[in-house]
């Protein structure tokens, strides 16, 4: 009999094929170069789409003149305070709603009926109540942050393995320690999911509120230069916002890795 050899090869090798690390940079770089070329050869007027190099130069000038500094600090002030208030209250209320049955029965329907309202629609009301100043803008950001955080914290509490609560009680925990040592750490992964979601929301609300009612801030700056059709300065504003979002996400990720080293 003829002995024929058929080697069996790994037919799922494509599943663990490695992609070189620089692939993601190449994508962004390629896009920027393409953009630069399109602007340079004048396919699109710089009024509509200024070249990346021009945006950078404009940005540098605005940085030196202090224009960015003033607007950025105004925006940072609003978003940091609004985000902090909204997330702290969201976590506290989420824990309470999740842990106490009565609070759940009373509070959860209220939360879910306010949650779907697009928060920016409430800005005129807040301006009426709180004035056109900082308070109404901070409040709307806090409110926008509060809801995703409260809802995620709530489901985080619900997702804590009841066995762990039983274990804690068995080994002597009272109710406060059950919340502190089991419910809180157990819901942290979900809380962070909420915080990340809220980061996007807060940025959106910041810009919208500033476009509607502010003299200072990145949002009003973008709108201002849009009205004046100074596109390169407008784009600098957009660039700052995207960097802000990026930093925000990175910061949260860093915090998450620090606080949840035990996560799978």
């Amino acid at each position, binding site marked *: 009999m003829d002995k024929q050899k058929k080697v069996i090869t790994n037919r799922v090798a494509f599943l663990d094929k490695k992609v070189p690390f620089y692939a993601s940079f190449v994508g962004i770089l390629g896009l920027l170069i393409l953009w630069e070329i399109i602007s340079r050869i004048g396919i699109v007027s710089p009024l509509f789409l200024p070249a990346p190099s021009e945006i950078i130069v404009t940005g540098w000038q605005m940085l030196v003149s202090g224009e960015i500094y003033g607007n950025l600090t105004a925006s940072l002030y609003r978003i940091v305070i609004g985000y902090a208030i909204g997330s702290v209250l969201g976590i506290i209320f989420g824990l309470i709603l999740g842990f106490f049955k009565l609070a759940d029965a009373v509070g959860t329907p209220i939360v879910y009926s306010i949650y779907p309202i697009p928060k920016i629609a409430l800005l005129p009301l807040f301006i009426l109540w709180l004035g056109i100043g900082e308070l109404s803008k901070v409040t709307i950001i806090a409110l926008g942050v509060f809801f995703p955080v409260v809802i995620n914290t709530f489901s985080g509490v619900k997702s804590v*393995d009841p*066995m*762990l609560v*039983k*274990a*804690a*009680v*068995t*080994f*002597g*925990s009272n109710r406060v*320690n059950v919340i502190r*040592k*089991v419910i809180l*750490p*157990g819901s*942290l992964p979900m809380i962070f999911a909420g915080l990340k979601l809220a980061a996007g929301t807060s940025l959106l609300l910041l810009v919208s509120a500033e476009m509607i009612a502010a003299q200072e801030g990145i949002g009003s700056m973008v709108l201002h230069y849009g009205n004046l059709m100074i596109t390169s300065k407008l784009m600098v504003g957009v660039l700052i916002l995207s960097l802000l979002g990026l930093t925000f996400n990175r910061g949260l990720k860093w915090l998450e890795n620090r606080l*949840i*080293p*035990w*996560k*799978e």
Partner: protein
Amino acid sequence: MSIVIENVGKTFIDPKKNEVTALENINFSINEEEFVVLVGPSGCGKSTLLNIVGGLLSPTSGSVYFEGITEKNPNLGIVFQEIALFPWRTVFQNVIYGLEEKGLPKKKQIEIGNYYIDMVGLSDFKDAYPKQLSGGMKQRAGIARALAVEPDLLLMDEPFSALDAQTRTLMQEELLTIWNRTKLNTLYVTHNIQEAVYLADRVIVLSRHPGKIKRIISIDLPKTGRNDEEYREKSSRYADEIWQLIRHDAEEALKE
């Protein structure tokens, strides 16, 4: 000191609003330095009974109490079937959980924690998180956590059922070694007959639907070396006796 389980019964209401009698008329006691094993087919109410004894479930009737105890509150240690280690705590932090809650001074916590971690052979993994441990190591950490509170009653619910056969055999041996050092009053739940005969001073055989005590069998074998040649035959006679008692119920359980 002994623990008395008196006329305990438990009825659940299932989702279709039917009453399910999980336990009926359970009477027995766990004596000083006694290792009692509860054995029965799955669904016979072993976990339910263990949870009632552990104060994690109220009985529908009857009661559980400690007799001849001088201090105020008896101390319980439970090793859970689901292990239930806190994922956000390292092995060491898990083991000292009960000591922390008792308010022991830090130095004492470290001393006792290290002692029991060493006893279960996890010294090299003190600072590891549960996710970094194998199944057997997790369960050892769970055992150390329960031992560390030096409980008046140790409860164990099928602690080795999720382990592979070889690991399980080793863990059973280790458990006996540890038990011989601590001599804790123990209630151990398993569906594994060989395990019951290997570990128990007394085996309590439960029937199913409703969960009732079928028979209580004293295992008249030395506590160590039950796997040795000379005791093989006697062990397997005990195992056979238990199997005859629960065979029918186990077959019924299979049909569900």
